[in-house]
């Protein structure tokens, strides 16, 4: 997992946000921050991802969407967003800012430094 390693080096502002079990599988929870909401997703396989809770289409709350595979479907108009990059599933175009997360001994840690997917990290 290259991306995660890279991210760990740059992120030094980890905040513990709760236990993995508090996020439903195939679901999400919201972390409220001064700068806006962050959606923290948990996939079927217990991977955890965090994105700004704001759909690149018209700002829909991604945390309220349905999680399938490594994607979330926005509840407002069905755009699909890649959880690992924040980039909209083609042919839609756009990107939600991504936040580093890591899970250690069942606890989830979030960095509040947003990473905007550049061309180099896009799949």
């Amino acid at each position, binding site marked *: 997992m290259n991306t995660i390693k890279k991210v760990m080096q740059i992120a030094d502002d980890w905040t513990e*946000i709760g236990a993995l079990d508090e996020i439903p599988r195939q679901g999400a929870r919201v972390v*409220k921050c001064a700068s806006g909401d962050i959606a923290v997703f948990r996939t079927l396989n217990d991977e955890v991802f965090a994105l700004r809770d704001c759909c690149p289409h018209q700002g829909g709350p991604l945390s309220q969407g349905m999680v399938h595979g490594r994607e979330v479907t926005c509840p*407002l108009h069905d755009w699909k967003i890649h959880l690992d990059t924040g980039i909209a599933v083609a042919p839609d175009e756009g990107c939600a800012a991504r936040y580093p997360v890591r899970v250690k001994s069942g606890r989830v840690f979030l960095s509040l430094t947003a990473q905007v997917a550049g061309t180099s990290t896009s799949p």
Partner: protein
Amino acid sequence: MKERLVLVGNGMAGMRAIEELLKISSDIYDIAVFGAEPHGNYNRIMLSPVLTGEKKFPDIMLNDIAWYAENGITLHAGKEVERIERGSRKVVARDGTSANYDRLLLATGSVPFIIPVPGKDLPGVVTFRDINDVEAMLGAAHHHKRAVVIGGGLLGLEAANGLLRQGMDVTVVHLLDTLMERQLDRAAADLLKAALEERGLRFLMQVQTEAILGDARVRAVRFRDGTEIAADLVVMAVGIRPNIALAKSAGLYCERGVVVSDTMQTYDPRIYALGECVQHRGQTYGLVAPLFEQAKVCANHLAELGFARYTGSMSSTKLKVTGIDLFSAGDFQSAEGCEEIVLKDAGRGVYKKVVLKNNRICGAVMYGDTLDGSWYFQLMRDSTDVANLREKLLFGQAHLGDAGHGNIRSRVASMLDSTEICGCNGVCKGAIVKAIGDKKLFTLDEVRAHTKASSSCGSCTGLVEALLASTLGGDYSMTPKKRPMCTCTDHAHDEIRSAILDLEMKSIRAVMDRLEWKSPDGCNKCRPALNFYLLTAWPGEYVDDNQARFINERAHANIQRDGSYSVVPRIWGGETTPAQLKAIAEIAEKYRVPTVHITGGQRIDLLGVVKENLPAMWGDLSAAGFVSGHAYGKAIRTVKTCVGRNWCRFGTQDSTAVGIDLEKMAWGAWMPHKVKLAVSGCPRNCAEATIKDFGVVCVDSGYELHIGGNGGVKVRVTDFLCGVKTPHEVLEYCAAFLQCYREEAHYLERTAPWVERVGLAYVRQRVVEDESGRKILAARFRYSQQFAQVDPWAERAKGVDRHEFIPLKRVG
């Protein structure tokens, strides 16, 4: 050791079965394939474009030789199997190569019929079946001038067209007086003949070939009436016969074809057969679409899943001659009890005929304008009752009065590029056509993904499909395949529903595993559908999967564009009290609800509530006696009533009480789509009962029941179901109707399209005529209601799903 699977016949059907098998499970067999032709597997359909020169042989390869090695399959190309030794389970090829099998798959295709006339074996006489034949024809076109094609059917005409394009003088001779008599009626056949003559083909009709003349090579063809016609090349295209020689010699039961069951097994259960060589339920097939359906079923059994069944196919044909539009499907020769609707416009060169039986389409022939072919075919396949469409049927789908698309009345072909096709997403014709071309889109799903057209309310689906058809053109066989539920699976809704019951699957995981889902955990389309199907199949047993629900149903409130929610308490039958109104008013003030709106469904909508406040607000509503109005769900919504006999000077019955009883009986039930009811006190119908899913109109003598109405995107007036005498009966009929609908409709299919699909007669039979069936349905509805009538708001106010409503953490 792995089991050994041997395929005899390296053609389109057999190889499709192998590919389907590999998709499901790639490692249960050692596979060997015998093919009489010395090539990989190619697309036989495309031999016609190879003959015209539009394609080359390598363009039409489906599985080249390397593919077999890459997939660990042993290919014996150019080896014709001569016998099957069933005792020792072995096949032996002409050159002695042999292979043992645990299961054997026969897909030997057809052989062209050769009319037994003198001279049939002369050099220069060919058939049109494989690449060898095409090469022979191309060779002849190089050196010779005059071609005679015997047979004016589909293959004969494609051969003739190809040879003409290669510069030959071509005469088609035909025994009957109409071309393509198996697909066309006389009117269409005459138009076709005229068009082909204009291109330079010559026809000799009603002539019988008596001999082919020549010494070293064919020189002429002689007919029964004594006339002769010069020829350097003769193509025999007079029909095909299932190739059953091998099966027959092995003692397998054959009639016209190798007889197979619904599981594609021959009388020897180790031996499967499919493709043109088989006969299933008395039918043989000569087009690929049905064979591909057979291949799926075959693979399902070979993979030991064992639930698929082949029940026969309906197929449709088009002629692959560029510039000629022709479509034919089903039974187009009116037999007894059938009716014909015909449109003929000689000036435009357009002819359309639709044959109806019991108000259902059983056949169609079209020439010149085939745009609506796919629509007729769909109606035919779904056995849709077209009584209501009849008047406009021949003018096509675009001419149906469609309230959602009032401005799109003309055929898509004649629409301007700037015409909006999808009103929800604002997508115009030009954008769709461009995307189809640029991005090479072939399916509705792809168009939806790339353009968003038809991805919201779906009412423009027909138009988008028509655009796809008119933009792609091409291939003459439309796959009559059932529409898969979504891109995660190949199975259609009905198949999945019956598999859930047959295989007693009780969780989404089980369905996805058993039915070989293509994605790890489905998508936003299939998960809600499966959740609903399981809930309906196993009431009280299946545990609802919250993560398989759309946010509205998960949060029990409607999400709004700003991410806030709306709250609509149930107001039974639309009747309220000052006390209730006060309670709502106080709660609205307490939670600072920005908008209070009286809805179109006779209740009150509190809009703009932040999610975190929902449980507390619901708690207050519960305390005041309210339950959820399910305004957010694929569920029972409202029961509108009028004041009825209690007040109104015209009222005949207590419509309000009946409405409240209906709502108390039905609330809480999850449905395929939203369901709205209404009860009006007299035929003035102030509660608009005749545009509801289930409507009751009170009359002096009792209650008239109406079903399948819709006041939304596409307004549809209800069908009259029956009249009943007592409120008790109203409840029983309603429960039975709702249960029949929820057990059988596709997810997201509202009652209006469902009734149109299955037909009013069917619903009447289930709900009205079959009395004991009705009582059983009603009982099943009431049984499942035991588990459904739990107010989700009260539960959540007490703490259920707390995580759904509060943030995980606040930071900073």
